């Protein structure tokens, strides 16, 4: 395994929160100390130079995103950490929060300083209640030691941070829905523009960053952008938390160089297939990304390579299916999630997801009709044009399932039964 950066203090198998003392002993808050000695714009430039791209799924360059925040703004600006992590197959932010809360706090402090934001929230999903408690304790520790609150380390900069325990809903992970949720409203997404960087939480400039994104920041500041850029393979910056679950022998979470090939992840880290069947399909970036079949298993796991191969790096937590899995039944399971979690705001998503789910279930249960494929094809096109990225996210696995495994659907319809599932 390569250099451990984010997981330096964490055993993903048994995450125990690192205390403030331990964290500092291992070099913690060094990045923040360096940041506070620079100007905010210098810090932004360092992050830009590092080539860090957002770990929330879209891979947008973090430094560039920060630069959209108006620096001369007189009112309150907000920094929000997105720890909603409800995307099926993803379990990376949990490890970071449960294992090393100060790493996140330090990352947020540096980000806040770089954009001169004096208030921050960590938006955390309901099921991570214990994580919120861990964070609350760590925040209190950081306040005690002058790393949060007023006049941090005598720098004159204030940063107040608090956790917000969500009431649970996948759409809350979408950044504009998250803002509505944080404002105490229904978590329907907002239209963009205006982007949150200009008008976000309570109408003020706001940055929403993923947990993992923010956890990279202290290291970039401490060791410099050049060091960071060299961590990845083939010119990719940084390490990436990668996970594997499903039909693998040793499911788990690892910190690997950005650009590690998928096959390495599958075979070396995840131990190959867990059953007697060979791998059949992998969803490379957690649920909302197009499915890979074995021809694509050599793809390097970085944003551009995965995109070039026809999918998205997403959260880099792969979900693995083997030849004993029925892809119709799997699709039914996948679409149940989207039908249930749709916020219900726009038509194709609200009505379409449930129709897809009902239809796929019917096919799975031997009740399919030949005309069903036309319905699914129509829906697979139309759900791309919704109000937010939720339904396009659903389109990714769905469209590739009915394309790449069409024969399985057709066979179910023709034979009225499943001959695949084992």
């Amino acid at each position: 395994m390569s250099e451990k950066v984010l997981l330096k203090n964490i055993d993903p198998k048994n995450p125990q929160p690192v205390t403030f003392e331990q964290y500092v002993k291992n070099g913690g808050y060094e990045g923040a100390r360096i940041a506070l000695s620079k100007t905010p714009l210098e810090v932004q430039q360092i992050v830009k130079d590092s080539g860090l791209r957002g770990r929330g799924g879209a891979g947008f360059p973090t430094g560039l995103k920060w630069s959209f925040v108006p620096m001369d703004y007189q009112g309150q600006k907000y920094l929000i950490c997105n720890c909603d992590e409800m995307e099926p197959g993803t379990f990376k932010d949990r490890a970071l929060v449960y294992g090393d809360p100060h790493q996140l706090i330090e990352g947020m402090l540096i980000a806040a300083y770089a954009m001169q934001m004096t208030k921050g929230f960590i938006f955390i999903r309901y099921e991570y209640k214990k994580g919120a408690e861990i964070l609350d304790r760590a925040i209190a520790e950081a306040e005690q030691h002058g790393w949060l609150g007023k006049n941090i380390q005598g720098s004159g900069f204030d940063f107040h941070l608090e956790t917000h325990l969500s009431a649970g809903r996948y759409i809350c992970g979408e950044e504009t829905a998250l803002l509505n949720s944080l404002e105490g409203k229904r978590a329907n997404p907002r239209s963009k523009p205006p982007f949150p960087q200009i008008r976000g939480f309570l109408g003020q400039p706001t940055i929403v960053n993923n947990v993992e994104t923010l956890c990279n920041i202290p290291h970039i500041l401490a060791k410099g952008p050049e060091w960071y850029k060299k961590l990845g393979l083939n010119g990719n910056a940084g390490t990436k938390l990668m996970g594997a679950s499903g039909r693998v022998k040793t499911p788990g979470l690892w910190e690997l160089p950005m650009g590690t090939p998928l096959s390495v992840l599958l075979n070396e880290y995840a131990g190959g297939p867990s059953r007697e069947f060979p791998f059949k399909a992998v969803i490379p970036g957690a649920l909302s990304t197009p499915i890979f079949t074995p021809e694509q298993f050599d793809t390097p796991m970085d944003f551009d390579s995965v995109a070039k191969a026809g999918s998205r790096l997403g959260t880099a937590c792969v979900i693995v299916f083997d030849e004993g899995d029925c892809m119709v039944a799997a699709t039914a399971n996948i679409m149940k999630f989207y039908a249930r979690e749709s916020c219900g705001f726009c038509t194709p998503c609200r009505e379409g997801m449930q129709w897809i789910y009902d239809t796929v279930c019917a096919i799975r249960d031997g009740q399919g009709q030949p005309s069903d494929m036309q319905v699914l094809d129509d829906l697979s096109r139309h759900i791309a044009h919704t109000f937010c990225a939720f339904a396009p996210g659903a389109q990714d696995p769905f469209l590739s399932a009915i394309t790449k495994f069409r024969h399985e659907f057709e066979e179910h319809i023709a034979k009225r039964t499943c001959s695949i599932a084992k």
Partner: protein
Amino acid sequence: MSELVKISIDGQEYQVPAGANLLQVCLDLGLMVPHFCYHEALGPAGSCRLCAAMVAPSAEKPAQLVMTCMTKVSEGMVVKIQDPYAKDFRRGVIEYLMLNHPHDCPVCDEGGECMLQDMTVLSEHIHRRSRFPKRTWRNQYLGPLIHHEMNRCITCYRCVRFYREYALGKDLGVFGSRDRVYFGRVKDGVLESEFAGNLVDVCPTGVFTNKRFREVYSRPWDLHTARAICVHCSIGCNLLPGGRHRTLRRIKPHPHKELNRFFICDRGRYGGEYVNLYPRQTRPTIAGTEVGFREAIHHAATQLRGIVEQHGTKAIVALGSSRASLETNAALNLLFKALGAEPQIVYYDSDEEYAAVRLAASLTTSRAITVPTLVEMEKCDFVLSIGGDLTGEAPMFDLSVRQAIRAGAAFFVISPRAGKLDEFARSVLRVRPDALAQAVEKILQALSNPAETIAPEIADIVQALRSAKKPLFLCSAIHGDVALIKATYDLAKAAHQENRPCFLAYYYPAANSVGVALANDSLEPTKALDLLRTGTAKAVIAVEHDLATFFGNLENAKGILEKCAFSMIVSSVDSIPPDMATVWLPASPHYLTSGKFVNYEGRVQHSEGLSLATPLTDGPADLLLSLIEDLGKSALLEQAQYSDIFAVAAEQNVELDELTAKDGGIFIRGQLRPTDLMRDSSPSLPKREMIRWDIIQTFGSEELSALAPPIAELAAPARIEMHPDDMAQQNIAEGDFVPVPDTPSMKLKVVPNPNLARGTFAVPRLPAHVASQVPVEVQA
């Protein structure tokens, strides 16, 4: 004028305003892009996804499927509405919307004007493919006005966007998520907003429908419609009543660019039902005996002529009506002319009202002030509401003020009693009815003497007024406070001098208050009363005027009528027992007869009459004209063209020095001299310890609408409100019965109201002829 850009839509080039909403641009060009969530007044939501088209920023760039409602036009844009990909997508959206729709079109109240049906056809969704069960909902009871049928919902969010965001209502919301989104109240109950009826129009399908209309449903294309003017307040909203067979079935707003735009209040929408309640006696009577129209008219003509011959030209007193058309009042005037008598016509119920309305109306029509349209009100950044409750006295002013508030206007209230808009006010000055003018004068003083220290209670107002770019003053002319009208005028004038547009609108007791105020011959009520009481006048004619209200109560009215040698009532409502008058002429009501009305702006608007097979065919004006004919003075009629405002004005001895045509309207400019009227204004009243304040309720206080069953159902019970401290001081407990000031024969239950000025008895204004029909807890 905004800059124009060139865009191409389906191969055609168009010049359109830069930055305009692409969907609205298409609709304005007559290019029908299917849509649901977008509404011209509510804007886009982007939720229905139906308005999709292929759009490229320029001919070279690739086109993308976008929602036209979320897109602004820009130079060189290439739009393809008819692109196959876009058409396929729109068809799909309709199919998804229809998945759970009940397909109950044959029994749907929206039938014939269903936007969902139109859009379905337009989007070419034809066959239902889903074979899965539909979701079903339970409906709610939302009160007497609106029926709820959630299964038809297509989740366009228009209802909550109108109700909560636009009208700032509180009790309609959106619940649930995913494919289970519900629009309704937390619990069953009457919708609180006075504008709830607009849900009927705003909802593109049959979720919110007009509960009264569905009782006796007609397909909309079977309705006779006419463009009418609302008769229930002085704003003059434009309406489209629809009737069938013998009844008025419903009223919808008729869009008007400057006034009501797309909306109306529920008094206007549901109040018109009074026209279905004809006078119980639909045949004329002479001394209580039923006769034919000709006979009754001939009898009246003969009697009236006799009275003038015998007692001279001053022997007749008439009650005209500020809720009747110009034509009706002009005909009354002409009748005097035909009789060779001096017109002695009274339009008001009290001298205070007489003075106040005439002063306000003359200020309005003499151009001394700039009167805003409803739409202009929405754009003001400072609003001061003075001396009245907008929600009850000028409901659509309330809705316009809500728009100004939404846009960030500083809103202030000076009134004796809390109204519904108070919660949005930066500050509220709660003052006794007789101290309103003083409060306004204080603001004027502070404004004109910047050096002086400002009293704290008005500091906010003065400060906001100073920094405002477009101030608006809204002042009630309903409570007969001449001093207030004058003070507000002075304040608006002073604010005007600061080199910025400054608006002032007075609002009035009735639909044609401004129209009749122009009549120079109008008589003060006490003068008329004296003439009748002393027997100087021998005959009385009442046209669309409630005698019981005028004389205080039915008993008084009866006494006076008995004293007269001759009395005649021309009325479209049952205001008084027909046998009380010598001649009783039942008239066809508003909405079924045509006529002109002058609204709060001085805008003359024509109201068409619906032609329905009703028991009464002649309106009050026609009946009076028949009388003139019977008098053998048809020649007079030929001279006067009643469709012509000049002629009408001339009949009323009003000099119209100017007529201004503004977009969509004629405005009259009268020659009443405001300065004279101000000098005339009655001396200040003696200070009384407790003073009466009339609560003008949205539902129940306006004479005609109060008769409509759904409005009567919503009317709050009659009561006397008192400040709790006054109650304590006077040893009055909640629930005690206290005599109504000025009407001591009536006792009402006392209800404490801490949001009432001290020293005030607040009593709902209930027209005498409807008081018996409104829930009143009266102790005899």
